[in-house]
């Protein structure tokens, strides 16, 4: 096996990187892929909570890098999907405990064991970000349809281009079609126009995302959730399938009754 290393980055915090990593990993694993996700946010770990694995942590990323345990020992197996693993971040250390070359070494070791390595980048563009993208074959840049998040995504894309990291793909998270229609939110077209990179996913705003991450049960397992479906679509696109983008502009019953489009 030779794993593909995918890093999810955004620049701005709070746009949904961790949720996305968890959901894409779950969606891939549900399709029979062997997946390891790595929490790159050393000192502020979250991915374990979103995946509902926090009480199983014994060793973490820094333990592997500093040689206190073997790689296998730090890989926590998911309770629902047997092909999904998490390497958690250390909570008591900071970003300087890991270097970009440590990440490349670690991923190279892991590559032979799994199909996908998905790395959750911390917010910012400093050491933690550099660690997270160092080993990446492909970077998914996340943004929300709001000006500040788009500007940070633009900065991240610029840094990746300067690094020769190849073309990044874009995920637009928390799209609210009603607000877009009112003209109160940037549309998908606005964002794409500005960032000028390929789109790989549009995730609509969905209250269930918060509920799910509090419970530690990723939404991608729930076929009824629109956001869950969007994450599954991203996973399928990563696997090379051509999945058309969902149209979130379908008028609801109320609007149809009023004769609006």
């Amino acid at each position, binding site marked *: 096996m030779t794993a593909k290393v995918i890093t999810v980055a955004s620049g701005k915090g709070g746009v949904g990187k961790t949720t996305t990593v968890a959901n894409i990993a779950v969606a891939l694993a549900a399709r029979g892929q062997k997946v390891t996700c790595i929490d790159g946010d050393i000192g502020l770990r979250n991915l374990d909570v979103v995946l509902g694995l926090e009480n199983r942590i014994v060793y973490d990323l820094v333990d592997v890098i500093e040689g206190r345990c073997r790689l296998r020992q730090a890989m926590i197996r998911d309770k629902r999907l047997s092909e999904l693993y998490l390497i958690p971040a250390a909570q008591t250390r900071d970003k300087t405990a890991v270097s970009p070359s440590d990440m490349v070494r670690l991923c190279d070791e892991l590559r032979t064991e799994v199909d996908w390595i998905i790395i959750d980048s911390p917010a910012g563009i400093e050491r933690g970000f550099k660690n997270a993208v160092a080993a990446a074959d492909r970077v998914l840049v996340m943004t929300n349809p709001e000006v500040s998040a788009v*500007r*940070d995504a*633009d*900065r991240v894309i*610029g840094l990746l281009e300067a690094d020769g990291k190849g073309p990044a793909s874009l995920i637009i998270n928390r799209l609210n079609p009603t607000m877009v229609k009112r003209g109160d939110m940037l549309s998908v077209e606005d964002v794409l126009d500005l960032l*000028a990179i390929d789109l790989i996913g549009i995730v609509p705003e969905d209250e269930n995302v918060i509920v799910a991450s509090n419970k530690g049960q990723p939404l991608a397992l729930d076929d009824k959730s629109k956001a869950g479906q969007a994450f599954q679509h991203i996973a399928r696109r990563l696997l090379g399938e051509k999945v058309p983008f969902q149209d979130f502009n379908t008028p609801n019953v109320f609007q149809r009754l009023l004769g609006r489009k």
Partner: protein
Amino acid sequence: MGETSSLIQIKGIRDGLLITLTGAAWPDLVKVFIENIENRSAFFQGGRVALDVGPQELRVADLSSLRDQLSERGVALWAVLSESTLTERTAQNLGLATRISKPRLVEVPQVAEPQPADAAKWVKGPLRSGGRIDYPGNVVVLGDVNSGAEIVAEGSVIVWGRLRGVVHAGAKGDENAVVCALDFAPTQLRIAGEIAVSPKKQGKSQPEVARLQDGHLTAEPWHELTGR
């Protein structure tokens, strides 16, 4: 590094000095040249010299005697440029170069101070947030300049795309610098010492040109300026 004597011109090039000797008989030129060296031995001492002799036809004796005289004064002759094939062949027989690489491009005065009027930096866009172009001349961007990006140019700035970032044209005080863009909405605009924030746009975007008029920054639609 000019030289007043009309018979001899001295220029600094990457590989030392380029001396042009024209307008008199060869013995006279050599005499002037040697005098020049003796008068300013500190300047020439240890130097490498290329000679441009124009159409002069020179034989081995002429060039080798000059080379000896130069080396006695601590100056090394390494190249002879000439329009005459005979002179070129002579130089080659003496093991001298007959070509120097693009002397015009490496003339010292040009390298030291690029002219804002003719130099332009070509930038392939989009110039993203955090990107910065700093250039002692004009800047041309093919693509968008996103907000969070910065261009500082001593000359003018042309953006073939949307301008959303910060632009400072005429950064060293050139009040004739202009800024133009296909879609003109910079976060902030500066020309020379003036600074302005672009007003909130209404209606369709259009190509505009910003310049200093009576000390005020003004932006006008391109079609109004050209009357089209």
